[in-house]
């Protein structure tokens, strides 16, 4: 074990000894040229990512009578906007929860079946992760709309009275669908952390399936599960295309409200849109931050 390490140290020492001389000779011009190569990227990234965000941040504080927090006061004082926030959070939470439960069951079973079936279903799941937005909404209208094939089938079987795809429940079902492939994609590698011999040791020590999962399986997986859940939440919170196509912008969620104030015909109000956008970015920011923290924790736990 020690020989390769020594070897590495040696090559590293030789390399580090050799590199500065080469680097010194061409350092000044090379570094400037290198920085110049970064310039085009920096310009485009600023123009299309940073600048719009800066504009939104600044103008969320801009009102007809000067700079103030009035836009935000309006957001948090209005039942209509609060309902949009509430709907967004509810749909994101439930679809992420259902999505992750299905993804956990699915990816755990995927690891237990033969590789042919596994590769096939994994590949298919990866492909369906791109089946989202408008085409997905359209497919769901065919399947679960008022005259959808599945709606009629379930109605005739007497399982459901009626199903409204254009309601909150309908949207949660639809969102859950596009969360599943993403969840499987993210969770499948996480099960690597569970070693088969732990299960065997646990069962030798008298643990049943339940106590194995309760005391070993779930605690080991927790950071990965939380991390995946957080990504699913963000994925659902920002989704716009599906709900826009289904309800022509009539269902009250945050992205719909924001878009209505910049592209609608009736109520153009970019400053108010900015304030709502900042609320959405704030929610996403909290989520992204939580994800980074969890990622760091799971990284150390994995070593």
């Amino acid at each position, binding site marked *: 074990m020690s020989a390769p390490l020594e070897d590495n140290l040696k090559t590293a020492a030789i390399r580090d000894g050799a590199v500065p001389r080469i680097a010194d000779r061409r350092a000044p011009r090379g570094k400037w040229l*290198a920085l110049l190569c970064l310039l085009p990227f920096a310009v485009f990234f600023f123009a299309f990512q940073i600048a719009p965000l800066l504009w939104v941040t600044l103008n969320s504080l801009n009102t007809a009578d000067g700079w103030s927090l009035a836009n935000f006061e309006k957001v948090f004082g209005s039942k209509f906007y609060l309902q949009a926030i509430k709907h967004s959070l509810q749909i994101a939470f439930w679809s992420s929860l259902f999505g992750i439960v299905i993804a956990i069951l699915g990816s755990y079973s995927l690891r237990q079946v033969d590789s042919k079936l596994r590769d096939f*279903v994994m590949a298919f799941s990866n492909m369906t992760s791109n089946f989202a*937005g408008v085409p997905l909404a359209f497919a769901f209208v065919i399947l679960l709309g008022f005259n959808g094939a599945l709606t009629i089938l379930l109605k005739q079987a007497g399982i459901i009275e009626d199903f409204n795809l254009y309601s909150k429940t309908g949207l949660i079902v639809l969102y859950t669908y596009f969360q599943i492939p993403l969840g499987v994609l993210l969770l499948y590698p996480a099960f690597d952390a569970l070693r088969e011999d732990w299960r065997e040791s646990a069962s030798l020590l008298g643990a049943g399936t339940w106590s194995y999962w309760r005391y070993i399986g779930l605690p080991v997986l927790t950071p990965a599960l939380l991390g995946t859940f957080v990504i699913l939440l963000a994925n659902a919170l920002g989704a*716009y295309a599906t709900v826009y196509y289904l309800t022509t912008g009539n269902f009250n969620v945050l992205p719909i409200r924001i878009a209505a104030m*910049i592209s609608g015909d009736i109520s153009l109000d970019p400053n108010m849109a900015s304030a709502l956008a900042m609320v959405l970015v704030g929610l996403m920011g909290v989520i992204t931050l939580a994800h980074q923290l969890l990622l760091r924790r799971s990284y150390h736990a994995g070593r």
Partner: protein
Amino acid sequence: MRAAETKRGALYHRMVVWLLFFILLLPLAATFLYSISSSWSATILPDGLTFDWYLQLWSEERFLRAFAQSLLVCLGALALAVVLILPLLFVVHYHFPKLDGLMNILILLPFAVPPVVSSVGLLQLYGSGPLAMVGTPWILIGAYFTIALPFMYRAISNNLQAINLRDLMDAAHLLGASTWKAAFLVVLPNLRKGLMVSLFLSFSFLFGEFVFANLLVGTRYETLQVYLNNMKNSSGHFNSALVISYFFFVLVFTWAATRLNREKP
């Protein structure tokens, strides 16, 4: 006793995997069935089968134009992304490895800022004035570059770490190559796989992008997704053929990426 239990377990896992497959397949299968049925309403199964909807779709001029425009915008965005990201990655990894940490934070921005938020700013900034781009494909190309950035950066960055950039460059330098020559003739060919995989994957989700396309450009330069949305009130069978045709392309590109990824280098 033990063997029977394992057997039951194996059956359970197979069932779950097949169930997962059927859940994922269901919307696609229904859309496909709808696209090849002559008429289908308020019954569980269609009345008859036909390929007419596909013939109609592929001879529709507006569809073909939207399709071509989608392709152009996606390819343009990917070309821009390659031209901007490859030098960036090379410079970061070779000259300023410390910048990688900063880049890893910056590439989170496209995730943390949903397209609908960026659109608010983009519409105002480039709606008028010297940089007026709203309503043209150029603004889409720029916006799509930011969507592709995190995926391309991560994929190629992993690839760069795997090929030991510094040793390769030093070897090339020792053999008398200039930095430019070494970057183009030695490093670039070694990145081919990571680059191709990330390009295929980026293409398959850029092709389905709707938010930017609808808010920034709309019907002024109609892409496939916007066209599908605008055709909402036309025949469902026609739209089904459209969705299946679109997904077929995505399928081909995702499949190519998966195949390429599995290949041994």
